């Protein structure tokens, strides 16, 4: 019960942050909101007894990605466009999203008929699985990430 209350509170906060990000006028504020969102998600992972991923989430999303976004803002800030345009009120999109969510929740109720409970996910188990069953995927992933980073750097550098 206690867990439920905490989860509800965190979820509420996460939604608040997400909406705040979407509707903030200043782009820096938006980045700060999204950082908050990421950290709250990391906290939720902790609550789910998934400590390693929670840490990863906070480190990578709450730290690295946010900083990257910040740098993006800093490198381009002066040219940011008219503030009025940051919020659009195109009705059809809102309807679309409502539909998405309702369908998503619909699927959720079909799923929730399974008996579910939270298990502790130890780092040991995770690493065992990661480096045994998924070793090939792990290597491929590393290569992909490496190449994409190199590509990004190259792309930015090329124009100079």
């Amino acid at each position, binding site marked *: 019960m206690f867990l439920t209350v905490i989860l509800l509170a965190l979820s509420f906060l996460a*939604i608040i942050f*997400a909406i705040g990000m979407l509707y903030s006028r200043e782009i820096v504020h938006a980045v700060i909101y999204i950082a908050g969102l*990421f950290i709250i998600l990391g906290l939720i992972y902790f609550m789910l007894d998934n400590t390693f991923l929670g840490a990863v989430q906070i480190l990578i999303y709450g730290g690295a990605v946010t900083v*990257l976004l910040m740098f993006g803002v800093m490198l*381009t800030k002066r*040219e940011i466009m008219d503030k009025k345009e940051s919020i659009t009120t195109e009705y059809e999109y809102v309807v679309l999203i409502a539909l998405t969510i309702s369908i998503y929740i619909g699927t959720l109720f079909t799923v*929730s008929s399974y008996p579910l409970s939270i298990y502790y996910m130890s780092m040991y188990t995770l690493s065992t699985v990661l480096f045994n069953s998924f070793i090939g995927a792990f290597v491929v992933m590393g290569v992909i990430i490496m190449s994409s980073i190199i590509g990004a750097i190259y*792309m930015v550098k090329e124009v100079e």
Partner: protein
Amino acid sequence: MNEVVLLSLSGILLGLGLYGVLTKKNIILTIASIEIMINSAIFNFIIFSSYNNNPAGDVVALFFIALAASEVAVGLALALMMFRIKKTLNIDVMNSLRW
């Protein structure tokens, strides 16, 4: 009860992210919205992995986090490129898909 709350959160985040992708004109905010959507997906993986005691979901989530980070890097590089070439971040200017 818990899982309902969590899955709902995931769905709502996905919707909000999608909303951001579709409505935001600033390319950086678009990238941020995409991140929200990816996060909701990862979140889903983790929820199910936790409840089923199956580490595979966690592993995939891990991969996704790593991928998403690099994707942000590439996305921002693209944003910089766009800024250099078009001198703006307005995504509506990028309509060169139509010939």
